[in-house]
């Protein structure tokens, strides 16, 4: 198969159309049972844009890390299709895998993921005076722990209980982190009051 090849023959187009009509579970079964590459590509194109955006946001805009997370997420997903019970949506499951991989990267890079701890005093990257940043950029400046909770809760719509389960923290810690993250976010977006934002 040529790299970057897309279906060009009528037969390929028909096959792709037929696959497009299949649900995630049917496609995943084709991948699991037959190693069907076209079925995988269909799943990939269906879910990866959201997965990539999520990973990119949690990782603070690091595209290379986000791409690695996406690839590794799919590898683990394909290996784990057999164990997946389909009680949740495939996208949710993929997001969970990606989140774990992001946490692994935080730990490996020592990016104070542990910011989850209440007693830590964190300092964000100083904002230049009169600098105007948008919400996306402000998110990237949050410490990884705060950013993850804000993204999961305010962007992705997870509940504190779901966040607590996925991050292996208590729901109260999740609430506390969200509150602090929002406050820091406001200080980053709002009138410039201080070079440092204390938590």
């Amino acid at each position, binding site marked *: 198969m040529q790299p970057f090849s897309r279906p060009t023959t009528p037969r390929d187009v028909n096959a792709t159309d037929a696959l497009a009509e299949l649900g995630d579970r049917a496609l995943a079964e084709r991948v699991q049972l037959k190693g069907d590459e076209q079925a*995988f590509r269909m799943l*990939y194109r269906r879910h*990866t844009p959201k997965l990539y*955006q999520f990973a990119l946001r949690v990782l603070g805009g690091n595209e290379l890390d986000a*791409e690695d997370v*996406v*690839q590794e997420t799919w*590898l683990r997903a394909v290996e784990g299709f057999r164990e997946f019970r389909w009680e949740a949506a495939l996208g949710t499951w993929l997001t969970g895998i990606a989140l774990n991989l992001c946490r692994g990267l935080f730990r490996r890079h020592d990016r104070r993921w542990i910011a989850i701890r209440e007693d830590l005093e964190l300092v964000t990257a100083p904002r230049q005076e009169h600098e105007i940043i948008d919400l996306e950029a402000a998110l990237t400046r949050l410490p990884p722990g705060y950013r993850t909770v804000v993204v999961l809760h305010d*962007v992705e719509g997870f509940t504190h209980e779901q966040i607590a389960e996925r991050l292996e923290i208590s729901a109260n810690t999740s609430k506390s982190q969200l509150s602090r993250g929002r406050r820091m976010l406001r200080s980053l977006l709002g009138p410039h009051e201080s070079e440092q934002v204390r938590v």
Partner: protein
Amino acid sequence: MNDNDHDLTEQERAELASLPRERDTGQLLEERTVQALRHQQLLGTRFRPRWYRRTLLVAAGVAAAVAFFVSGLAVGQWLGTRTVTDSMAAANHQTAMQAAAAVQRAGSAYVLALTALAQVADTTDDRAVDQGREVALASLYAAVRELVLLAPDDPMAVTLRQELERLQQGGTADVTQVTNLVWF
């Protein structure tokens, strides 16, 4: 801290809701991911279902275990056989040596006994001496028969037996010759 202190405003909610939820990764990442899956034999022509790979692994494991067991058994048997063979050889060797020594001791005793008999032949009861001589000849004859069985190709043993048989059957043998042979 009360979570409500930092509830989002409508504007903030709107801004968060306006954030893009998807982003295109480009074709490169898709191809890279497919290649990685192919490399792990999870996709494509080299794909093997997980159960197949697992079965293959189990079969290989069983085969290795059987081979290990059989080779262990063979080595054990070989070691055991070798030990038994060595032991038997050693025992046989010991027994042969013991038998040869017994022959040597018996031969010496036989000669010594006949010497003693010869020394008392003129002074004691002739009848007893004759009896001793007959026993000595019978023993000699029996010994020669065993000697021929032991070494059928030994000319000395064969000749002795032939002479003794001829003496028993015909009685014409020269006693002096027999005596010489005995003492030889």
